[in-house]
């Protein structure tokens, strides 16, 4: 459905996007993950036709963006990083305007706008000025704008940024719902968000794709087995010694004392096998009570660090 080939964007000497290749299938929800300044927004701006690429091509449904800009733009709904709203218009006027520039036929306009406002739940603010809306509502109006004209492809740049936790969950649910009959590209710098919504993730750093996989495979590949965080009452040397002897443990790292009289350790399992029971029995035999045991999630920073070091190893 979407095909990106050798996409490059150069600002003077700086390469913002560096020969990116990927494709998105119909009905897929693709996550675009990367730190700020990685080139996510630039890539999205190019796909939507806001910026021109220095090199490379964007093909949508077999149509090249440069050769058929109007047809391609009709197929895409775009929510940029800052929702493009006119503060002095009411929500209703604004969506009406968007429908007109997206060439929704006047006959179908009223009905389709009603449907969108119902779906996004902004019906009750339709006659309010956009400048008086809360951040959450502004974001929703931005999302509604992307849906006008019923484009088959949605491109959403950080759709949940700046929202409160309840709104974040609502927007995520909404995106999942939309993903049933839309192809979606979504960018984020928060890993759990992408894993919650997306079927496939592309990680991008310094303008280059560093990984592309399902969220599950990605975290599996990165952790290479599971990490467990334990808090044990006892002395550090003793705890580490007992844990190192448990079968299936490949590495034990002490993290210091966070609670008086206890020690935090991270235990790494060698294979896929579950070592939690073995840890429990070993420690209870040594009369070292476990106060806390949980799987440790990798933060985005750690994933990047790991991916980038992996790359350097391959290179050297």
């Amino acid at each position: 459905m979407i095909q990106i080939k050798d996409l490059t964007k150069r600002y003077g000497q700086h390469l913002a996007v560096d020969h990116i290749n990927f494709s998105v299938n119909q009905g897929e929800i693709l996550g675009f993950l990367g730190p700020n300044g990685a080139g996510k927004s630039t890539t999205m701006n190019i796909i939507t036709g806001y910026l021109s690429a220095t090199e490379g091509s964007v093909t949508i449904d077999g149509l090249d963006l440069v050769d058929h800009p109007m047809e391609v733009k009709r197929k895409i709904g775009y929510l940029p990083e800052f929702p493009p709203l006119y503060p002095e218009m009411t929500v209703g006027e604004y969506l009406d305007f968007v429908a007109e520039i997206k060439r929704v036929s006047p006959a179908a306009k009223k009905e389709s706008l009603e449907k969108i406002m119902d779906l996004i739940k902004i019906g009750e603010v339709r006659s309010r000025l956009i400048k008086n809306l809360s951040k959450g509502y502004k974001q929703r109006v931005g999302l509604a704008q992307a849906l006008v004209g019923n484009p088959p492809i949605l491109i959403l740049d950080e759709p949940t940024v700046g929202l409160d936790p309840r709104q974040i969950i609502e927007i995520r649910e909404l995106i999942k719902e939309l993903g049933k009959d839309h192809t979606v590209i979504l960018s984020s710098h928060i890993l759990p968000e992408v894993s919650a919504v997306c079927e496939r993730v592309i990680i991008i750093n310094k303008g280059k794709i560093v990984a592309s996989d399902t969220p599950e495979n990605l975290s599996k590949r990165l952790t290479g087995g599971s990490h467990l965080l334990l808090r044990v009452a006892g002395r550090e040397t003793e705890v580490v010694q007992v844990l190192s002897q448990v079968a299936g443990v490949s590495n034990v790292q002490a993290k210091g004392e966070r609670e008086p009289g206890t020690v935090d350790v991270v235990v790494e399992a060698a294979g896929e096998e579950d070592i939690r029971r073995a840890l429990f029995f070993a420690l209870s035999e040594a009369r070292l009570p476990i106060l806390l045991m949980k799987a440790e999630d990798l933060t985005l920073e750690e994933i990047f660090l790991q991916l980038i070091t992996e790359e350097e190893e391959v290179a050297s």
Partner: protein
Amino acid sequence: MLAVLKREFKAYFHSPVGYIFMGFFLLISGLFFTLIDLVPGSANYTGVLANIIFVFLFAVPILTMRLMAEDQRLKTDQLLLTSPLSITGLVLGKYLAAVAVFLLTLLITGLYPLVIQIHGLLAVGEVIGGYIGFFLLGSVFIAIGLFISATTDNQVVAAFTTFGCLLLVWLWDAVRQIVPKEAAAGAIFVALLMVGLIALLYKATRNWLVSLLPGVLGLGAVVAIYLTRDYIFYGLLPVFFARFSLLDRFDTFIMGVFDFSTVVYYLSFAAFFIFLTVRLIEKKRWS
């Protein structure tokens, strides 16, 4: 294009900008109408039009400062440029919205000649001609303001730059009076134009040979002509300045002469700045 025109036109009256423009324009034109026609009991309405041209200096920047600049600040240009809307349509829509506000204001001032018509003898032909010229001149100024507005995302900067440029247009005729008409001045002027052209050529090709060769040939030709037939350059500078004098041509309208070539002149001036605006926006996508 129509959707953009409609939105921009409404936006003028959703903010104070439209009212400020109309209020200012009507205040000044009303004042001059009173001073020139009502108080002395004169029926000379074109004199009013000729006298209030300076209003453009202040009114046009108010009208055009937000046209393109605001979209860049609000990032709504991302919506406009990613919709199935041509850049030409977008720019034309915005331009025509500003022109429509101007036209609406001008129609209101139509009451003044009506007052004269009721109480005296109005030179209908001259007034209509004067209005056409006045409208065309304003449209050119609006196009200049539109272009300047596209160069920045700051409305204040846009307003002041537009004011500066219109001031230049305003002073153009005064400058024209003092430019030297000697052949040497003409030759130097042509030589400077040539140097500018070489610089442009170099910027486009990045090749010294390609840009210097025609440059040297051209400059040589200028020197040769100056040495052998210097009368060709005589009076060239004043003529050149006269070609670009916008206000000079307005006088023909005031005199009731409908000169079609002047209409084309104004329209092409406006079209040139609209074209520049379109190019500028297109170029921004590539930078």
